[in-house]
């Protein structure tokens, strides 16, 4: 597998912050529409991290106008411009899918320390 790993490494970015489940992240994504380029920022809780190597992805969840919204990003995609860690969270699970059933004050994450 090392040939594959070496190939993937060439395409992987090395400027990623340390991200843990429960953290609040901002992902700056390049969006091309009508021939114009702009940056869209999506901020939310990191509720799942999947994949290894080049397939590494993060799923963010936030509440937007009373609606739960989730977005999954391929971390190493050239469309992801930057990832910022806004807050550290303290959770006891690897996947925070239980947040989907909760809203409002219950759908909060305790801040680390």
């Amino acid at each position, binding site marked *: 597998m090392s040939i594959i790993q070496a190939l993937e490494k060439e*395409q992987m970015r090395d400027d990623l912050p340390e991200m843990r489940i429960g953290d609040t992240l901002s992902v700056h994504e390049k969006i091309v529409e009508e021939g114009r380029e702009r940056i869209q920022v999506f901020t939310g809780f990191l509720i799942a991290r999947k994949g290894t190597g080049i397939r590494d992805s993060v799923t963010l969840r936030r509440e937007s106008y009373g609606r739960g919204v989730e977005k999954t990003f*391929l971390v190493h995609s050239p*469309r992801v411009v930057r990832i910022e860690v806004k807050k550290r969270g303290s959770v006891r699970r690897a996947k925070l899918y239980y947040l989907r059933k909760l809203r409002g004050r219950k759908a909060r994450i305790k801040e680390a320390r």
Partner: protein
Amino acid sequence: MAGLIGKKIGMTQVFSDDGTVTPVTVIQAGPCLVLESHPDRGRVKLGYGEVKPEKLNKPQRGYFARVELPPRRHIRDFRLSGDDRFEVGQEIKADLFQAGDFVDVIGVSKGRGFSGGIKRWGFSRWPMSHGHPEHRRTGSIGQASTPGRVARGKRMPGRHGGKRVNAANLKVVAARPDDNLLLVKGAVPGPANSLVLVRFSRKKPRRQREAKKSES
């Protein structure tokens, strides 16, 4: 139609600049040593993979002594097309292909042993409930006393996989002669580390050579 002998390494994916993901199979293609070249018959014989001479049997050693070339583990014939010309003793590398070319990749598919009709031919399963005693049987294989026999070639359970398969018309995503790697879009027959043959697609027009391109 010349091609290369190689080894399937495995699959991964690559990003393009706009973020599109392409699934690719990584093939360690070449370097292949030209053992024989017969432009008159339109064939070349290529060897791949270094071996110690003592690993080969005597007839094989005799062959390499006759062509006066270092021994290779795998030997395959390729058809030449048009004005392909290769010198005996020349090494063909992955730069035979370039990104955008279409290739056929031939390998031996994964052996699946004696498989039923569902896996082998995509038959439908019987219902799991409502009193069905069996769920994966093939069902009827024909009529009664007219014609009184089973149609020739009737699809039934049997040995599945482990056969030579051609994955035709795959696009070359990248050719890296420096590390002998070829990245081909899509899946390729066989398990990782198995031998594969890569050749220019039979069914796609071949890329024009640089020399010809400048003429037109």
